[in-house]
């Protein structure tokens, strides 16, 4: 698995998304370089999942432009490259075993059948699930189910990986292990990753850059200039984390104010 020469960057310009009675995204601009790991941090309800739904082609009802590696995505169309998506919940098919769930994704992908076995072996081993391939989702713990959905997202060899708070429901120990695994996979494959979280320190540990969202758009961006591999106890990392955390709290408070003003003076 070598780094690809093609451009898998994302360029979002003037993205506007409205739901009945509210404008969730108000002219959002975002650039993610090819192979970059960007974390999106923002208060609950500020439109993070909404943004991923638009970028992945699930929601075609928006204004503005979205480009992947220079190729524009038609509103209502599909992204012009392969997307791996880890949802906020595992979203596994309960009537299929762990392995068949991964097969389901592979069957609809461009990965040639000859390579399926090797790919599955690799990621099942990496996530420690090889003994559970024949288990049904209800027989897996929450953390195992989330790891399985990580296997599914990675197995189709996506160019871009979207992750929506994938580790927020896990215990800290499992989450720590998975973060390190994720960084290993990212280092080996050079995918572009957009990672949503509520956790400032998780964002700092993982990202090249942390983008803090507030209501409507981007509030601030912080580049994490800490060399990799990173250590959880790194003092420099902790310092950046504190800055990120302060910005995040500011953004959350601004969102609160915006919401109460919004109800006081509806426009």
């Amino acid at each position, binding site marked *: 698995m070598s780094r690809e020469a093609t451009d898998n960057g994302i360029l979002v310009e003037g993205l506007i998304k409205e739901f009945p009675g509210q404008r969730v995204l108000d002219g959002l601009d975002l650039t993610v370089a090819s192979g970059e790991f960007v974390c999106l941090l923002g208060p609950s309800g500020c439109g993070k999942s909404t943004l991923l*739904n638009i970028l*992945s*082609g*699930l929601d075609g009802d928006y204004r503005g432009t979205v480009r992947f590696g220079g190729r524009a995505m038609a509103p209502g169309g*599909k992204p012009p490259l392969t*997307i791996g*998506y880890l*949802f906020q*919940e595992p*979203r596994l*098919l*309960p*009537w*299929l075993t762990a392995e068949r769930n991964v097969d*389901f*994704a592979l*069957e*609809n*992908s461009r990965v040639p059948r000859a390579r399926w076995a090797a790919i599955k072996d690799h990621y099942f081993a990496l996530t420690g699930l090889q003994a559970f391939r024949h288990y*049904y989702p*209800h*027989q897996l713990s929450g953390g195992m189910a989330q790891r399985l959905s990580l296997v*599914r997202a990675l197995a*189709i060899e996506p160019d871009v990986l979207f992750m929506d708070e994938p580790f927020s429901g896990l215990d800290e120990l499992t989450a720590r292990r998975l973060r390190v695994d994720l960084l290993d996979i990212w280092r080996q494959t050079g995918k572009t990753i957009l990672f949503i979280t509520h956790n400032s320190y998780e964002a700092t540990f993982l990202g090249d850059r942390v983008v803090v969202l507030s209501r409507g758009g981007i509030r601030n961006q912080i580049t994490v200039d800490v060399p990799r591999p990173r250590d959880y106890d790194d003092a420099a990392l902790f310092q950046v984390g504190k800055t990120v955390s302060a910005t995040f709290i500011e953004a959350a408070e601004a969102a609160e104010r915006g919401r109460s003003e919004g109800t006081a003076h509806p426009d």
Partner: protein
Amino acid sequence: MLLKLGSMLAVVAAWFGLSLLLPATVLPGPWQTLNVLIENVVDGQVHQHLLATLGRVAGGLALAMAVGVPVGIVMGLNRFAEKTLDVWVMVALTVPSLCYAILAFIWIGLNETAAIVAIGLTSAPSIAINLWEGVKNIDTRLFKMARVFNASRWVIVRRVLFPQVLPYIMASLRFGLGIVWKITVLVELLGRPDGVGFQLFYWYQLADMGQVLAWTLLFTLVMLFIELVILQRLERRLFAWRPEVRL
């Protein structure tokens, strides 16, 4: 299983007790009834009537499912369909089954087709409602998952929608069977020269309680067999992936 057996024995015992208190022309005991049933079987008249009834049940159920399942699924998935159809399903449910039977026999004639149409149309609304309620519980987030993973519309219908709807189809099959049995008997006494319903009505007119109960017993036994042995096994097979519920 033991619980089921116990409760059945209790009912038979109660039947036996009551039959001792009442004259045999009003309530023959279980033993007498079983004897009449066995005599009927030995006579060779049972299987002809039973097969006629079973054929109508199967045909009526197939028609009811063919109409009710698609209507229920569409109503559960599509809000527009739900709003336009729900009144009509309610109307169709309210019309007494006797009306369907009379109309079918008048319009189509006193034949097998009319009987099956009457049975099917009477039960279809209940099946549609059953499925409609069920399909509302479907996890639509799985459709989004499938779309992100590039599944085509057909793949989504076949591999994401269908497995989720199947439990509700099976439930409505069992539920529909219960309704179809009852309507079949009614339709038979109204316009058919054979079948369990015809026999019941015949012996009722002759005021032969032994025969009435014998046919009722036969009917119940066959129904229990289909429900407990065939349908439950089929369900266990189809839904092996489900977490086991132990009571």
